[in-house]
C-alpha cells in the first residue's frame, strides 16, 4: 500500500488531497509511479507531464525520478515551494 499526497495548486488541479494505492508490480521508482498516474489521462496527464514543474517527495525527503519506491511509502507530489 502506498499513500499518495497532493498539495497546493496540484491538489486543486487533480481534485485529490490523499489517496491509498496498492503498490502495482510495475512501479519500482518515482518515474514508474508517474507513468502510472499519467495513464489516468485528463488533468493527471496534463499536470504531471515531463515538461511541467513539480516536485516529488518520498517519505518526506525530496526525490528524483530514480528514487526507489517500496510498499508502505508516503509519496507527495507538489508544485515548486513558495514559502518564506
Amino acid at each position, binding site marked *: 500500500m502506498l499513500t499518495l*499526497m497532493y*498539495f*497546493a*495548486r496540484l491538489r486543486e488541479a487533480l481534485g485529490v488531497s490523499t489517496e491509498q494505492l496498492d503498490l502495482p508490480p510495475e512501479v519500482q521508482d518515482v518515474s514508474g509511479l508517474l507513468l502510472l498516474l499519467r495513464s489516468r489521462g485528463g488533468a493527471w496527464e496534463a499536470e504531471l507531464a515531463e515538461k511541467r*514543474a513539480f516536485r516529488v*517527495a518520498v517519505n*518526506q*525527503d*525530496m526525490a528524483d525520478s530514480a528514487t526507489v519506491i517500496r510498499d508502505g511509502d508516503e509519496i*507527495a507530489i*507538489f*508544485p*515548486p*515551494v*513558495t*514559502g*518564506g
Partner: protein
Amino acid sequence: MTIRVQQEDFDLGAELLVLREGNPRIGAIASFLGLVRDINEGDAVAGMSLEHYPGMTEKALERIVEQAKTRWNIFDALVIHRVGDLKPTDQIVLVAVTGEHRGEAFAACEFIMDYLKTEAPFWKREQTPSGARWVDARESDEQAVERWR
C-alpha cells in the same frame, strides 16, 4: 535548534531573548523577518493563505539548519514559519542565528533563508482583485540558493 511551524503570531524580541539566554559567549545575532507585502507581481494583495506539508516541513527545516551548523561555527538557530491566513504587514517567517562573530551568523542566516525558500514545503495562495492565485516560484530564489552549492 528550534523549529516551529504555527498559525499564531510571534514576538521577535522575546524569541531572540530565549535564543541567547544563558550563553555569554554569543557576540552576534543575525536575524531575518519576512512580512506579507500588500503588492506582489504588480497586483494588490488583500491577504494570503499559507499551506504546508506537515511532518516534511519540520524535517526539511531541521536538515537545513543542520547543514548550516556543519558549515559555519555558530551556536544555535531558530526558525519560526507561520501557516494559515495572513494579511499584509503580518509576520510570516523569522530566522535567527547566534554566533561568536558576525560573519558566520550572517552567512548562516542567509543560507537558511535561501534553502527555506526553495526546499521547505510551503505554498502561498494570495487574494488579488482578480481573484485568488497560487504564487509562482521565483527564478531569483533558485539563483540565490545556487550560490551555496
